[in-house]
């Protein structure tokens, strides 16, 4: 998942695809957020009331179906997506990561490619 929420449809497409895969009984090994995709992991988003909440929707997939949502640490640091630990380590006074997301390394993308039967890329 290579693009952030709202700006490109990629995040919506990936969400609908993931939800459909779960409906069909498939196991989702992991959703890996890279490039601007890490911006999906913010809990500070306040979309208009008549619009979808992209980040919350991902968090719900993690909460309800145990889907692993991983933000690439290097991509997240560049773009200012931090969990509590990362914020402390970097000496930042606040953090912004949404529940259900975890920060990890790029190796998790390769590992997913090895483990999963199929890998689908969504982006710009």
């Amino acid at each position, binding site marked *: 998942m*290579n693009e952030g929420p709202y700006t490109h*449809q990629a995040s919506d*497409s990936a969400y609908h*695809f993931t939800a*459909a895969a779960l409906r*069909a009984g498939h196991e989702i090994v992991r959703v890996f957020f890279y490039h601007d995709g890490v911006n999906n992991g913010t809990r500070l988003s306040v979309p208009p009331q008549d619009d979808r909440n992209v980040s919350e929707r991902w968090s719900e997939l993690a909460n309800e179906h145990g889907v692993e949502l991983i933000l690439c640490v290097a991509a997240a640091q560049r773009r200012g997506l931090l969990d509590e630990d990362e914020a402390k380590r970097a000496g930042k006074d606040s953090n912004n990561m949404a529940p259900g997301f975890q920060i990890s390394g790029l190796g998790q993308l390769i590992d997913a490619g090895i483990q999963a039967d*199929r*890998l689908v890329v969504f*982006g*710009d």
Partner: protein
Amino acid sequence: MSVLHIINKSPYDRSSLDTCLRLAQPDSAILLIEDGIYAVQKNAAAAQKVEQALANHQIYALQPDLEARGINPDNMIDGIALVDYDGFVKLTTDYDKSQSWL
């Protein structure tokens, strides 16, 4: 080892459809999503290459993306099949792997 090629950009703004058609093996399929949908339109500048591609490839278009863009299915090039998100998932399992032409 057949491939599902995924195109998400307009054939009028990006090179991805052209590149896909240049590099897709005859038994591979093409799925049009997001702005890739605009390639389905009949009587348009991109129609001829899409019609030619149908000789070698199954071509699918994601219906919710088609509807969002207001394209009348009657104006779709004959031979393109519509799928929903469930069908999109099924295609990724029907083919050995997918290639998103970002």
